[in-house]
């Protein structure tokens, strides 16, 4: 589904290479986790895949179901089925959460040549999905993420994911800033979306999140490369011994 080959990325503003040849394939129905120390390039990978400005791809490729992602605008990548749950969801004063969700859902439908969702239908679906994430009517009415707690912001990300029904979901440190209960709630939201047609790439520092969202494959990223790949036991190893052993082993 998601196929990344020898991806090399520099910061556009300065001559600094962040990703030095990333190879990664996420199959439909699978959950892949990427762990790694600070500054290893995990978040950069998520931003480059979703099309954020400020990065320059100097080599390699990334595709979703055979479609070259790097050629597409961010909104086209979203319409193609890519979704990034932000580490720091952006506050947008003046834009109602509901308006935002509906605009996004219908923009994607339009881009795919599908009919727009009626207001009534949309309302029904959004209420139902918000409820399972414990998002109340007030949160739906408020401006996007404005005045939301850390946990509310992350739940709101998962609600967007549930509404947009992407093929490929990237979760960038979704566990950061969450207490135990919030992490459980968010994980349940993610698990409810697990599907044989949907792939997940979960970026995290800690094994904790992977107790809730069980990965099929775990990658260790360091210094702009995937340095080790294994099963869920790899995450446990990191939890117990830190990254030092693994990094020493592959050095």
């Amino acid at each position, binding site marked *: 589904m998601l196929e990344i080959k020898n991806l090399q990325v520099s910061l556009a503003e300065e001559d600094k290479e962040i990703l030095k040849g990333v190879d990664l394939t996420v199959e439909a129905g699978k959950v892949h986790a990427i762990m790694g120390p600070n500054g290893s390039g995990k978040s950069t990978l998520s931003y480059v895949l979703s*099309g954020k400005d400020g990065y320059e791809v100097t080599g390699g490729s990334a595709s979703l179901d055979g479609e070259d992602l790097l050629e597409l605008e961010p909104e086209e*990548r979203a319409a193609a089925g890519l979704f990034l749950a932000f580490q720091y969801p952006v506050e947008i004063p003046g834009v109602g959460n509901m308006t*935002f969700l509906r605009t996004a859902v219908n923009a994607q439908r339009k881009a795919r040549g599908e009919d727009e969702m009626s207001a009534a239908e949309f309302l029904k679906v959004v209420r139902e999905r918000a409820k399972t994430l414990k998002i109340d009517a007030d949160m739906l009415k408020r401006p996007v993420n404005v005045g939301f707690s850390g946990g509310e912001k992350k739940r709101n990300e998962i609600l967007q994911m549930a509404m947009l029904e992407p093929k490929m979901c990237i979760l960038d440190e979704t566990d950061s800033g969450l207490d135990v209960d919030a992490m459980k709630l968010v994980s349940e939201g993610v698990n409810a979306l697990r599907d044989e047609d949907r792939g997940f790439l979960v970026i995290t520092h800690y094994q904790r999140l992977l107790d809730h969202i069980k990965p099929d494959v775990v990658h260790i990223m360091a210094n702009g490369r995937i340095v080790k790949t294994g099963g869920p036991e790899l995450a446990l190893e990191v939890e117990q011994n830190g990254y030092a052993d693994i990094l020493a082993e592959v050095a």
Partner: protein
Amino acid sequence: MGVAETRISQLQDRVAGLGVPASAWNAKNRAAAIERLQSMGLPAPRDEYWRFTDPKSLNAIEAPNAALFDPKETDVFDTVDGLEIVFVDGVFDAAASDDLSGLNMSIERLSDAEGQDAHWAAECYGTLEAIGQTPVQRPFAALNTAYATDGMLIHVTGKVEKPVNITYRHANETSDAILHHVIKLEEGAELTLLENGPAAARFNKSCEVFVADRATFHHVRTQGRDHERRAVTHIFADLGTESVFKSFTLTANGALTRNECVLRLNGDDATAHVAGASVGDGDFHHDDTVFITHDAVGCESRQVFKKVLRNGATGVFQGKILVKPDAQKTDGYQISQSLLLDDDSQFLAKPELEIYADDVACSHGSTSGAIDEEALFYLCSRGVPKDQATDLLTLAFLAEAVDEIESDTLSDLIVEKLEGWLERHRQ
């Protein structure tokens, strides 16, 4: 010739072609305005009050040519059930207007009223304008009082349910219109005034509003989309105890617009809100100049002005809050912001606070900024196309001003117009 002489001789040329309508009761008001105008002359670009807006085209003897513009859509307040009044290039259009009558009010044309022997407006016409000449001179307001050819005189004695809806049409490329309205709200009276349209190639409009104790005045206007039109407008209002004055203006396009608003809060616990959203692309110069005087205890005033500028458009804000020594417990708020959609546009702001009372809360802020790139990426990453995302963020920027409109029906109509404008003016 000295500066003063130059101004006076310029003024003589400027008003040479204008006539003063004869009137038994209004002659003295008109004459007094001419005297005021003679003493100040026309504004010059070096005047502090005209530093950011060149008065040249307003000073010119002839109105600069302004091409007609047909937006090919219905008027903004078409769906509102109101008392319709239409002026075409400043000339009353009886056929297009409703009968001038309404429950709890008397409404008539200035030009009709001036033919009468006496009139309630004799004590009102030009008086707020005269007071508004200090401490800052407003020559075009004096010119208006002196030479206005028509306008509406509205006396409100109770609650008026249907808004008065004045439409100004522009049908002649060189029209030069001067209209003067006087609105007097008695104690507890309520009126909503709607205004829309470009009016003329050059338009000078004044509106004097007397808001008595516990009376309420709502005003929503849109200034038309004709790109080459010019307008200088003044609102003068006096507010009594516990009265409410709320005015909102949407300005889209226009080579030059100078909207002055001069408010005096004279009765305790009065409320005055004045807001504006303006959007300009290219040859657009928009100036909001506001002067609010707090002269009573416990009054609240808000100024909320937002401007969206692109392709070399210019926005100006000059706003002042003056709190007199006895105006304790004043709550004054002023915000002026611009969203610059490119590097060519500019926003010039001069916020002023002058406070002589010691127990007041006044705040003001002025900012210029671009679209928030983080927010834009966030919206796009959810599948919203970039231009649509930009529009959403732009509307969000304007929302604080639009939210000042009390009626949801009216604010929805304004938002609809803004959405249309933004969609047509995408990069």
